[in-house]
């Protein structure tokens, strides 16, 4: 087991005692983890990406040039607009611009076709005044990060009814990530707490918790969802319903983690280092938090990073019961759902762009998880 060899490694490193490793010797556990994590380049990239997503989730109103439901009728079903530095004559413009365009229907195929009008240039502007919104639900403002004046800019094109795909993707990022976060954290905390108590205390407590876990797991999911579909207030919006469903699913989902945590703790309880800690008079909280948890943190991290993508991808799966995210809610799942047909693939392939966000988010979580798992065991070589 890497955890026990890790503990032996501390002894080995301390025995050398060279000046170069002094900081290493006196560093705290968390410092060691961070140093190790930093060496994992992909994890750093992943963490940066998640940081960007966090910023997006905090201020989508500012970053998106338009609101999620604003329609640009004249550019409906229009492709992504290119941002140019050079115009058709080859002249360089320091301020990037988008071209004007004309949208019309092909008389034969009835397909909507957008043609670029290279005679009209609309320079991109920073901090433009556009649709008003409330930042953090507190401050009234109408400043958006970028935009163009006199026209519209659609970086990712527009959808069937003319809504800006870029803006919608930005708003969807907040919905999808925050709901995923709520669901995963609830399951994680519950699983850790109950699994921990059950595994560490054992005896009667273990018996009770495990029977409760079995009871919860024996509830058939489909009737439960059906009951939820009937029980949740009808006047809740799709997003509210989905949050409720996520929470309830997490209430059931923690049992998997709890069982595994319990099993791990049962095994660790008998380890020498735990016995040593106990003999040294450590409190139970300290033994669990300080000695036992870190030794299987890598496992927990993997569990966490796997659950995140799962909950993001599961978004639309429940829609057949009216419990999932559907139009007019805006989430990654909803955006991708509208792209799930041959027509969209052929006529409006840009509707798939939100899919890239999902891929990037899932990869970022996995890289961070990968790095964190290695780092969680800082003494392992």
């Amino acid at each position, binding site marked *: 087991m890497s955890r026990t060899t890790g503990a032996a490694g501390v002894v080995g490193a301390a025995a050398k005692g060279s000046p170069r490793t002094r900081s290493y010797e006196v560093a705290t556990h968390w410092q060691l983890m961070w140093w190790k994590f930093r060496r994992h380049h992909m994890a750093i990239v992943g963490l940066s990406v998640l940081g960007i997503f966090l910023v997006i989730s905090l201020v989508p109103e500012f970053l998106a040039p338009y609101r999620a439901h604003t329609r640009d009728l004249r550019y409906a079903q229009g492709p992504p607009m290119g941002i140019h530095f050079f115009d058709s004559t080859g002249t360089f413009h320091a301020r990037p611009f988008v071209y004007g365009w004309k949208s019309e229907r092909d008389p*034969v195929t009835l*397909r909507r076709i957008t043609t670029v009008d290279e005679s009209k240039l609309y320079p991109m502007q920073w901090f433009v005044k556009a649709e008003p919104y409330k930042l953090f639900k507190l401050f009234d403002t109408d400043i958006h990060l970028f935009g163009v004046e006199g026209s519209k800019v659609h970086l990712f094109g527009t959808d069937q009814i003319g809504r800006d795909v870029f803006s919608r993707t930005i708003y969807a990022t907040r919905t999808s990530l925050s709901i995923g976060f709520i669901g995963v954290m609830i399951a994680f905390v519950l699983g850790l707490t109950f699994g921990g108590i059950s595994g560490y205390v054992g005896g009667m407590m273990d018996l009770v918790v495990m029977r409760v876990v079995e009871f919860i797991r024996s509830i058939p999911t489909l009737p439960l969802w059906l009951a939820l579909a009937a029980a949740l207030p009808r006047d809740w919006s799709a997003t509210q319903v989905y949050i409720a469903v996520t929470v309830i699913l997490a209430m059931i989902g923690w049992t998997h983690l709890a069982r595994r945590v319990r099993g791990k703790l049962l095994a660790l309880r008998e380890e020498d280092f735990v016995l040593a800690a106990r003999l040294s008079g450590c409190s139970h909280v300290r033994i669990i938090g300080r000695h036992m948890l870190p030794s299987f943190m890598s496992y927990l991290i993997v569990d966490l990073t796997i659950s995140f993508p799962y909950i993001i991808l599961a978004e639309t799966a429940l829609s057949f019961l009216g419990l999932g995210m559907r139009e007019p809610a805006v989430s990654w799942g909803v955006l991708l759902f509208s792209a799930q047909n*041959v027509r969209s693939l052929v006529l409006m392939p840009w509707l798939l762009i939100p899919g890239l966000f999902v891929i990037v988010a899932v990869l970022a979580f996995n890289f961070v998880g990968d790095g964190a798992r290695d780092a969680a065991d800082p003494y392992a070589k």
Partner: protein
Amino acid sequence: MIIPKSKFVRLPLVALAAGAVWALAGPPTSAVAAGCPTVAEPAGLQTEFPHQIELVDLEKQTGATLTFSERPEFAAQVAAGTLPPVEQRLPEEPLVVLPYVDCGEYGGTLRGFARAYESGTSEILSWRQLNMVRYSDDMVTVVPNVAQGWTWNDDYTEVTFHLRKGHKWSDGKAFTADDVTFWANDIINNKEIHKETPFPWSIGMRAEKIDETTVKLIFDKPYPALLQYMSGIGSYFTPYANMQFLSPMHIKYNPDADKEAKAAGFDDWVARFGVYFNKWKDAVVAAPEGIKVPTLESHLMIDIDTQRRIYEVNPYYFKIDSSGQQLPYIEKMNERFVDKELWPIEIMNGNLDFKAQNMPVPDYPILKENEAKGNYTVTLPPSALGPVLIFNQTHKDPVLREIYADVRFRQAMSLAINRDEINELIFLGLSEPRQAVPVAGFTKPEDENYMIEYDPDRANALLDEMGLKRGPDGIRLRSDGKPVTILWEFSTQFVFTPEFPTLIAGWWNDVGINALVKEVTSQALREKGAANDIDIAIEWDETFEPVLISNVSPMVVPFSDFTPLMGVPWRDWLNSGGTSGEEPPEWAKRLAEIAEVWPTLVPGSAKYTELAREMVDIHLDNLIIIGTVGRIPKPNVVSNKLGNVPKYEIANFGYGYAFALRADQWYFKN
């Protein structure tokens, strides 16, 4: 009216002649020298009904006896004596069909697809329908089909059908008046099979056999629209049943039927009977059990599994073309079950010969772009589809009920919808913005254009007049101070695409009405509608005169017979004679009165038109149903290899989709 005459003297001669031709020339595969009058070139032939003629009339006009020719597929069987020759398989008076362009060639396999075997997406099922009569392709003229002719009594309470002598089921046994009386008296009127007599027979109907080929249907009330019903929506429900096959399962004819059914694993005899006889052909004749049931249709189903359904030509089909070839030309049909999302790919790759049913309009551009690649032609026949909205004026919330019941509110909601944008963004600019009035001869253009303009100012004025003041966030407030919130639960099946309600909710929000749009399943929506638990009922078909004639329910409380309903307590009041439910307003009572009388009138008569007009006026004055866009076309894909497929005039469920296109005379060009 056509009265069948016995032709038994002629028959042996024809048989002899046909046999001689057979022996000398081998199996004929195309039009013989006798000529081939077609719709394109009738060669001076005068027909009483468009595109078809009875054999006796044809021979009278040509002055020659028509020689029937044998199908090449059956030559070996006929020679071996396992199948009777064509002249013995055909009725004595086969129906002569004028092909559209030319007398076709035998053979080929027509490829189609449906979503699953019980779905409503199969045109092969829709065009196999055979009723006593049918619509010609003008969708107006009723023409003979299984029946050679019909006679009404003076007050339209009795109709006599004249069947074809010698008409045979696909197992070679005789089809007679008994099959009609069995269907009417022992199935439709059997209280165990039908606890409630199915529509439209609930007006009271029984059948009486006059002789082997003459049968009379007798109604308790005049039913002059019977033939229109049979030709249109009723074409899905054949008014006869195979007595020889089914009666051993019927308790009246076999006292042991119940015991036998239980031994076979069914609950009772009714359950077993229902498996082999069902009013909706999708469910049974299309399912594996259907293979065993003999039919009169052009093709027999010979194999079915979870992937596809295969049909083969019926050797006893009762129609011939004008050159004497027995129909149908196409030998086999292979209908695969394909996920709807994959249809465009399959079509673009040329894996299909015909598709019209359930085709979404927004797919048209990709289908059109790939026409050459898939060797097909896609057209856009008009249809009568278009989602309409019905505010529930019997809403359980008294404040909302008061709002929804105010005609100014409904007018404002209609004026706040930008129909041109819906048309442009969702329906490729192909639909027509129109108010929800029937697509019918008795409506005028001004009815269709009533309050369909996008006029948010006027909508706001109407809402202000109602006293719905705007709150701080711009949403209007109800009399109890809460914001006006419509809970609009919808199902994609009814609104085509979730963007449709999203768009409308956006415009309503602009005039200060908050609409919470939420997707639920069709089933949930139906249940909520039946429980008077919805804010907006949606219909996706426009009311359409040929359908309306036989089923007036879309225009009277509760404004549907199947989909979400409006005014359930009113319906209960009307049905119970005022003892339960809630009393409806005067206009709803008047509609119910009209609905009693109207179906008993002769379509097109003065009284019929007058009452229809009154219904339309009541609807517009009260704006009970808010129309959006209508006449949405349905893409129709036809392989370039198929011959004799006419231009689709209208694609509608009420006409049985491709039913009027006479698929039995399509053929594959070499």
